[in-house]
Every structure is written in structure tokens, then in C-alpha cells.
């Protein structure tokens, strides 16, 4: 029963990553690209946390209800959660940088179309 729960989270995460990637590749407006990037970022974070999730266990915050000898069989993996916690903060800082660069470049070219930004052409 829990396998459907488990795999649907992975499907959601992979779907978000793919949708965000498609948006980054195909959209024109620079802020729309930043939004798609944020969506892909959310999907990647979901996938990372999912990789450390074990169904039927509790959060890695230990209160008195768990005896010390059974901690390893009672909590989910704390390591991916710690990584994702820092990844989220980095993600929003990068998004802020993205938006500021986009705004300044669109000021310079007079349009928000990313195809006209010769400085940013790939």
C-alpha cells in the first residue's frame, strides 16, 4: 500500500524537474525562465528528500517516546534533509541573482525577451 504513496512522490518530483527544464529551454520572457527554474529546483529538492524517505518511520526529531537503542529503526534518513535544507536557501539566493541579472539585462536591451540579450546568448 505504501508503495503507491512512495512512487507517486517520485513521479511528482521527476515531473516537476522535466516541466521546469522544458520551460527553461523554450520560454522567452526572462522572468518566466526564472519561474521555471524555481519549479525545477523544487522538484530536485523533492527528489532528494524522497531518496532518504523510508515509509512507516517518524521524523528525525527524537523525543522521549523512542528508546535510544531503536533510533536507527525508527527514524528516516537525516542526511538528505540536511542537504536539502541548505539547498533551498541557496536556491532562493540564486533566484534573486537570476531576477536581478534579468532585470538589468532587460533594462539594457529594452525588452524582456531573452533572445535579444546578446550578452547572455549561448
Amino acid at each position, binding site marked *: *500500500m*505504501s508503495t*503507491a*504513496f512512495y512512487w*507517486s*512522490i517520485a*513521479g*511528482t518530483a521527476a*515531473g*516537476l524537474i522535466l*516541466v*521546469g527544464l*522544458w*520551460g527553461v529551454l*523554450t*520560454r*522567452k*520572457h*526572462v*522572468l*518566466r525562465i*526564472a*519561474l*521555471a527554474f*524555481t*519549479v525545477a529546483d*523544487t*522538484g530536485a*529538492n*523533492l527528489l532528494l*528528500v*524522497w531518496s532518504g*524517505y523510508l515509509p512507516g*518511520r*517518524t*521524523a*528525525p*526529531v527524537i523525543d522521549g517516546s523512542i528508546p535510544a537503542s531503536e533510533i536507527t529503526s525508527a527514524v*528516516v534518513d537525516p542526511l538528505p*534533509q540536511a542537504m*536539502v*535544507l541548505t539547498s*533551498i*536557501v541557496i536556491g*532562493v539566493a540564486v*533566484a*534573486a541573482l537570476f*531576477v*536581478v541579472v*534579468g*532585470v538589468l539585462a*532587460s*533594462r539594457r536591451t529594452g*525588452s*524582456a*525577451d531573452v533572445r535579444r540579450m546578446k550578452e547572455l546568448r549561448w
Partner: protein
Amino acid sequence: MTETLMTAIVLTLGGMMVAAGIAVLFVRDLLSAIIITGFVSLSASVMFLLMDAPDVAITEASIGAVLATMIFLWGRGKIGDDG
């Protein structure tokens, strides 16, 4: 009972998240796209909570729903909807 309920919640939420992710790309108004991105972040925070990651859920809720949305709104106020 609760297993079925959790599966139903995650399936609904995941379907809504992917649909909202597609809507971010295709909705015409940029303001709506920004709000929909905030919705994706907030749903992701619920999903982190269901995956027993309360720390990550709190961080995602406070950042994805508040700070990132404000940053994008500022950018929209500077650029506008064209393009």
C-alpha cells in the same frame, strides 16, 4: 485507512503540482504565473511534511511562499508583462 488517505492526498497534490508547473509556462499573465509558482512551493512543503521532513517543510514554506514570491513580484514590477 490512513495509508489509503495518504496515498490519495499525495496523488491529488502531485497531480495538482505538475499541472501547476505546466500552467506556469502557459498562463498568459505573469502575475498569475508567479502566484502559481508560490502554490507549487507551498504544496511541496506539504509533501515534505508527509515525507517526515518537518525542518525542510518549514524552510520551504517560509522561503518558497514568501521570499521567492516577493523577489519575483519585484522583478515583475520592474520589467512588466511583455514578452
